[in-house]
């Protein structure tokens, strides 16, 4: 099947073959976008490319300009329908994909082809907004190679060059450019965003400062790293690691936010953090979250010996215990701090300011409120304190048929009602917010804490890895005399999620399943190898940032590196490589036709022996002169020259000059006088 296809491809006219190749490359470059773009967009692109391929095969005429414009308007309308805008990331990419496919219908002149190439390069870049995994990288490297090959093919107007030939030329150009790429990648100063935050770059993490229920049907397994952490002494077990992010106190029925207190600051509850036990000194590197906060280990007190050390930043602890930064985190930073696992915080007495934490939106989730009232009315709980009530609710979660899942489906209005009483499917956000709502309905002050919980099971060189998928939401309830207490309702239904710090693993793919059935040990080894490669990729490529650049400069002897140093060094090296290029070109100028060079060398050798040979004499003439000048002594060398002459001027004569072995035998064949002369 494939064989016949390649055979047929070999018989296609060059123009058709090139067009089909070009379309194939475009399809390859668009393909990964079909995973997240609207369905119609992928379908439209596929149909357009197939149509263009058919036109190329049948030799049909390209459609008129108005057809193209009409299709473009249609696509713009579709985008508007989906996104309500034509700007922004998703809309822009949708339009780019359609534009790319449409432009193939206009591939007439070289200029049109060039437009497609440049659009193509940009399209490749847009994939990285969604994924920068190794697999994506390899896929798109192939796409870039294809685009460069098509570009080369467009500049080979003579004959019918094979695709391999054009591919080799483009691969060579790209490979020769790799040193420059590495240089630029390593030294190009990493600066923050140049203008306002790209809005859609936010909200990747669960720490955006708000939490919306029912907005998403499922959350993706985001394996990107959020932070790494290393302890100076003994490390706590990963399931005890709670990294405190924004604390959410206000609920409007759909969305949790920090909210504004109804009370003046003096009446609001203060942090009143008391710690005891062993201090845990740790060092943490944070990936850029684009949020102005530090998710530190609970609880890190604001004292000179324990507060986060972060030169150049102004960290400050909020009254709810979360550490805030003075500006969003756009670069990788390293921070040192000390935390205490044993701690208590919050007011010990029931102050008025705590009433903020029993507020519920009027009218929302009435059935849950009824459920809470019914719970309260149970005789055994009539006089129960907050702790007993919380235990009762947790027991209900454990025994009430709730399921932890990453794909709970969409919840509509009164999401808590629907989750708590009907569907009972959810992940940490659902459990935490339902728990807080119920506790508030029972008149217990409660709030939501977002952050990360748990780490990877294995450490890397002593570093614990916390990934975006470790993002978590839990609850805090206020207990008289004790202050705020952490309660993790997810623990009640999916202790696995909390204890191993891993979210539910998605069902294994078909291949993984097959390997698993065949040889579990091999599967494990493969998985570990893959994870190791992936870790390297993450560490060396994806997490390369300003601090690594500065580390590099420090290693090179700069005492206090700045981005100006980077720029200077980059300029210096680029100038050096430009000079090297010019030198190479200059050297290359002196390169001669190898045959002529060989002729000159032979001439030099023979003249050293006193044989009169001229530059224009061919090998045969030289052989004759050698024989007549030296007689028997030069016979064997002359025979070699004769053989060379025959080869050179044979019907399918050699074009390359003889190699090293020929020279060796030629030099041995020459009489001794030469060797003395040398």
């Amino acid at each position, binding site marked *: 099947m494939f064989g016949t296809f390649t055979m047929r491809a070999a018989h296609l006219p060059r123009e058709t073959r090139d067009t089909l190749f070009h379309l194939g490359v475009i399809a390859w470059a668009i393909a990964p976008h079909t995973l997240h773009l609207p369905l119609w967009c992928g379908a439209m692109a596929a149909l357009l490319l197939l149509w263009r391929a058919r036109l190329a095969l049948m030799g049909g005429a390209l459609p008129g300009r108005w057809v193209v414009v009409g299709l473009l308007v249609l696509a713009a309308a579709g985008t508007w329908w989906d996104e309500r805008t034509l700007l922004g990331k998703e809309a822009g990419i949708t339009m780019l994909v359609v534009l790319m496919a449409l432009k193939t219908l206009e591939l007439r002149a070289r200029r049109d082809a*060039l437009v497609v190439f*440049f659009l193509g390069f940009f399209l490749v870049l847009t994939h990285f907004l969604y994924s920068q995994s190794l697999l994506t990288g390899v896929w798109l490297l192939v796409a870039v190679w294809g685009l460069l090959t098509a570009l*080369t093919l467009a500049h*080979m107007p003579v004959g019918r060059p094979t695709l391999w030939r054009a591919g080799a030329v483009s691969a060579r150009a790209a490979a020769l450019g790799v040193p420059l790429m590495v240089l630029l990648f390593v030294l190009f100063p990493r600066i923050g965003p*140049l203008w306002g935050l790209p809005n859609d770059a936010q909200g990747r993490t669960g720490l955006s400062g708000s939490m919306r229920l029912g907005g998403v049907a499922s959350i993706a397994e985001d394996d990107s790293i959020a932070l790494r952490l290393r302890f100076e002494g003994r490390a706590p077990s990963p399931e005890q690691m709670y990294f405190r992010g924004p604390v959410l106190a206000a609920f409007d029925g759909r969305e949790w936010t920090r909210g504004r207190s109804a009370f003046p600051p003096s009446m609001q509850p203060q942090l009143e953090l008391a710690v005891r036990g062993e201090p845990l000194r740790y060092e943490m590197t944070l990936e850029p979250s684009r949020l102005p906060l530090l998710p530190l280990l609970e609880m890190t007190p604001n004292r000179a010996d324990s507060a986060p050390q972060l030169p150049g930043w102004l960290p400050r602890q909020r009254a709810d215990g979360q550490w805030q930064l003075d500006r969003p985190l756009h670069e990788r930073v390293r921070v040192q701090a000390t935390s205490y696992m044993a701690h208590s915080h919050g007011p010990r007495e029931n102050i008025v300011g705590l009433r903020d934490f029993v507020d519920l939106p009027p009218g929302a989730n009435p059935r849950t409120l009824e459920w809470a009232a019914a719970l309260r009315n149970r005789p055994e709980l009539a006089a129960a304190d907050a702790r007993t009530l919380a235990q009762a609710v947790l027991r209900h979660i454990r025994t009430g048929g709730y399921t932890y899942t990453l794909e709970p489906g969409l919840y509509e209005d009164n999401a808590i009602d629907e989750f708590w009483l009907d569907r009972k499917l959810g992940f940490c956000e659902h459990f935490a917010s339902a728990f807080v709502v119920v506790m508030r309905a029972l008149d217990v002050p409660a709030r939501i804490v977002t952050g990360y919980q748990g780490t990877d099971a294995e450490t890397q060189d002593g570093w614990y890895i916390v990934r975006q998928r470790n993002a978590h939401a839990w609850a805090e309830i206020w207990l008289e005399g004790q202050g705020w207490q952490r309660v993790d309702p997810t623990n009640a239904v999916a202790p696995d999620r909390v204890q191993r710090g891993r979210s539910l693993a998605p069902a294994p793919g078909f291949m993984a399943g097959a390997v698993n059935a065949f040889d579990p040990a091999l599967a494990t080894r493969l998985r570990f190898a893959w994870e190791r490669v992936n870790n390297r990729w993450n560490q060396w490529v*994806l997490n390369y940032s300003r601090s690594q650049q500065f580390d590099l400069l420090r290693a090179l002897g700069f005492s206090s590196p700045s981005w100006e140093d980077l720029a200077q060094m980059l300029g210096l090296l680029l100038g050096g490589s430009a000079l090297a290029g010019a030198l190479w070109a200059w050297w290359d*100028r002196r*390169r001669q036709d190898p045959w002529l060079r060989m002729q000159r060398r032979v001439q030099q050798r023979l003249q050293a022996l006193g044989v009169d040979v001229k530059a224009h004499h061919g090998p045969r003439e030289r052989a004759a002169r050698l024989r007549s000048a030296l007689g028997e002594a030069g016979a064997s060398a002359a025979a070699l020259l004769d053989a060379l002459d025959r080869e050179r001027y044979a019907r399918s004569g050699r074009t390359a000059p003889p190699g090293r072995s020929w020279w060796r035998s030629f030099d041995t064949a020459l009489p001794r006088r030469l060797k003395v002369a040398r």
Partner: protein
Amino acid sequence: MNTAAGSLPEPLRGLAAWSPRARFRQWLQNRLPPTDTWVLGQRNVYILPTRAGLTFVATLMVMLLASINYQLNLGYALTFLLAGAGLVSMHLTHGNLRGLTLHLRPAQPVFAGEPAMLEVVVHNPGNERYALGLRFEAADADAGLVWCDAPRQGQASVHLSLVPARRGWQPVPTLMVETLFPFGLFRAWTVWRPAARVLAWPQPENPAPALPLGTAQHGDERASRRGEGGELDGVRPWRRGDTMRQVVWKKVARSGELVSRETTGNAQRELWLDWAEAHAADPEQRLSRLAAWVLAAEHEGLDFGLRLPGRELPPGQGDAHRRAALDLLALHA
């Protein structure tokens, strides 16, 4: 084999020739030594980015901005990979021309207004060279290009056609060899002023008046005109020097041996083509008429001589004679 048409540039085309740009070009060309063998090296290969190259840079800039703003490390990698490949392509484009030797083969004379074939041999001492475009410097930048590939350590020949507008020795106009290979981001070119000239014969008048047979000297009454006495002509085996027209192809086809028509009879007739008899207003027109007569006399198989003011070509016939006559006409002062 690649061919293209070109035309001689008018030396001065009105005011355009006096624009600073044209004058600069003229000055630049005059600096070039005229030569028939042009070795491309660092000194005579020029390179500049094309419009596509500038667009490429703009695209890279946008990609860099996107990478910075979204902090995409792979975006940086992609941008820099393309930048590296683009920069390397500059060297490849320049290297695609550097080291080549171009040689212009001597061209055959042609009639003015008819295309002369110029053969340029590209000698390549290095690795394969692709997409070398040749054109006359004055020709249209896109349409006039003839493409060729030069194989590794081999040769390629390109044919350019040149239509001389006037008779006489015509200089081969300045040639330009350029390449966009591999990515079209840069254009490398060289300007070559060949030393060779093309001889253009006067354009034969068409239709031309009949041959001035009245002046033919009837040296021998046995002479008969071709056509009337065609059957009377004898045949003899082909001899070196017989023209193709003398070969009796019908007999050749039948017997398989080359035989020629005996033309001794015609040789007796001497026709003088005289400047004075070509009555025309304009000397150029006279030359055109004489050229047409030369062709007609040759076609008729007549012995003819040519008499120009101050020059005379004794009667004779055959290819060499015809050429000598036409050369004389072409170079008539």
